[in-house]
């Protein structure tokens, strides 16, 4: 049974949950994810494992309320148990000492980039992190990110905190400052990752993005998660979730994420759906 040990609202609609899952915690590496179901009639949704506590046998997930399943999940309390959790799934992030690595997280994507930054730092990288959100109140994990970064830069779309603008502007500034960057890791809404890949492309800085297509089994069985990378179809659940951002067809990813928009809306009976990315 996967009991919820702790639930904290990081902002109005972003939640951090600690879930008991000893076997997953024991094996999990940065970049991997789980697929969970809230109840028997629920959907299977993938969520990145943000942290694990191998001693306590727990994993941490962070998610934004964007659809029916995440709404249901947010409604579950400490002591409740999830119907199912399977993982760790996907390839771990390729971690080595690249030199200087820039870790960029947008919105709830900060939760995904955080373990990557931590692992990079541990391996000896100089880690520059750039995190961003629409506005200050919904910026998450600032302290955690600071603790694993040599330098932390913050941007908000509305200028309520840090740099007034997008994380891509901040990255551009870092590049323009003449700093040598060996690798970029970027996780966030699809449009953000697309723009970041365009920023680094002229400088040939390898840019790894973490993709979040719709998944069902997440074991390579169904093909729901297919993405196009370098003109080849890949299964994000088993070949990914991380790919070279310069090779990813982001338009396709966007369209495929919108596949169930109407149905999701109907089911939610609300205006929000996950169709706009993460």
């Amino acid at each position, binding site marked *: 049974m996967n009991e919820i040990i702790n639930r904290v609202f990081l902002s109005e609609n972003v939640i951090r949950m600690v879930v008991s899952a000893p076997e997953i915690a024991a094996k999990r590496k940065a970049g991997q994810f789980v697929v969970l179901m809230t109840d028997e*009639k*629920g959907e*299977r949704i993938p969520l990145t494992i943000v942290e694990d506590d191998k001693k306590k046998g727990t994993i941490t997930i962070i998610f934004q309320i964007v659809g029916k399943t995440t709404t*249901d999940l947010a409604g579950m309390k400490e002591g409740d148990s999830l119907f199912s959790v399977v993982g*760790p*799934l996907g390839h771990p992030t390729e971690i080595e000492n690249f030199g200087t690595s820039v870790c960029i997280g947008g919105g709830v994507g900060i939760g995904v980039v955080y373990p990557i930054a931590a692992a990079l730092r541990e391996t000896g990288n100089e880690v520059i992190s750039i995190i961003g959100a629409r506005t200050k109140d919904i910026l998450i994990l600032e302290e955690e990110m600071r603790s694993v970064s040599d330098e932390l830069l913050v941007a908000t779309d509305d200028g309520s905190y840090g740099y007034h603008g997008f994380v891509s502007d901040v990255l551009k500034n870092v590049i323009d400052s003449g700093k040598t960057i060996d690798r970029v890791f970027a996780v966030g809404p699809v449009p953000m990752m697309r723009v970041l890949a365009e920023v680094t492309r002229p400088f040939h800085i390898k840019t790894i993005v973490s993709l979040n297509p719709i998944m*069902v089994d997440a*074991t390579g069985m169904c*093909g729901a998660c*297919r993405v196009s990378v370098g003109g080849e179809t890949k299964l994000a659940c088993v070949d990914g979730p991380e790919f070279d951002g310069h090779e990813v067809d982001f338009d396709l990813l966007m369209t495929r994420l919108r596949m169930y928009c109407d149905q999701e809306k109907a089911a939610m009976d609300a205006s929000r759906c996950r169709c706009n990315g993460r």
Partner: protein
Amino acid sequence: MEDKKKKIKIPRQSMREQDPQVRSKNFDEVPLGYTEEEAILEASRCLHCKKPFCVAGCPVDIDIPGFIRLISEKDFIGAARKIKETNSLPAVCGRVCPQENQCEEVCVLGKKGDPVAIGRLERFVADYERTAGDILIPEISLKTGKRIAVVGSGPAGLTIAGDLVKLGHDVTIFEGLHKAGGVLIYGIPEFRLPKDIVDAEVEYLEKLGAEIVTNTVVGRGKTVDDLLEEGYDAVFLGVGAGAPVFMNIPGENLSGIYSANEYLTRSNLMKAYRFPEYDTPIARGKNVGVIGGGNVTMDSARTALRLGAENVYVIYRRTEVEMPARIEEVHHAKEEGVQFKLLTNPVEYIGDDNGWVKGAKCIRMELGEPDDSGRRRPVPIKDSEFVIDVDMVVVAIGTMANPVIPVTTPGLETNRRGYIVTKDETGETSREGIYAGGDIVTGSATVILAMGAAKKAARAIDEYLKNK
């Protein structure tokens, strides 16, 4: 002799079915099964041959004349138990086995007339036993203290687990999905194999004493070697051939284009056909193209009809004669209104402004020389392209081996196509203590062949453990 003549006069009993017009709108099972009278009458047709060909045609050697005799004697429970001596899943097999190519194909009655309806009788007694609730849990022989890990809970995994538990071993099944049953649960639709039946079989296995651990993808978290290190004395791999195959033609990633695996998994495992009661959505196309000619194609096409499609086209590159689907399934699909576009092959999908499929550009084919499979090879006719309007497509052209286990199990030999190599009669792989059977060895085959392979591997594992 008199008796034999009389018997031959009795016609093969047909089985009642839901009306095609009605059933194409619901997910209830299509055939309704025999009544007791029908079953007894059908059973009375059997000649009880001294050398029964039917048994030789059965991959798990069911004592067919034996169980049929018990039906004639109205001992339906006895008949069910007779089958269960060699086949632990009769309610499933009675429904999905291709009897026309197995026991019934060689039944002597078939030489002059219609063979005994062995499959329908098997189904009848299994259903009788289940609804009577009179399920026998056999005494387990002395515990051996040996532990076996079974990976995958499809027909192969369920069968070997049952056999090994009965031999006194401790068995744990690891299943990647959240529900046990393999293709029986996620692939074959409710209207052909009600999920209650699969659930009952899985429950029976648990009552026997097998442990089932779901949500565990072996090779991702634990590897096969981890299992051996944890103290399992042997491992059986029954992981199926679950990876999707696409044609790799332009436009195939448009929204609205599914692999059959995804389409059927959404509908069957996730119960998307009951959306929004269940949370998983599924596209409900008005004009649906289903590519392929096998059972999976028919299952997908008939599912699309039930999900409200106005036109469902099976698009197949050869003719009906070459279709690998069971004749009965093609017949059912036609009755329900599925349309067949034969000698037709998609070459490209066309999308609308939202990236949703709106057309399948196809090319006409003709049959040329026979290929390796002995079937005549389809050849495209130049400049014969045309577009079929579709707003949903299911690609059902087969599956391949999922590499997760081979890649994470050093020394496990696979063939060119990624299937695990075994010694035929035993399921032994290139690694000591690791056995395999079912679709992961043969490629997509049938439920009963997977079960047959599992039974052989059970005997081999038992031998191996005795000598270990």
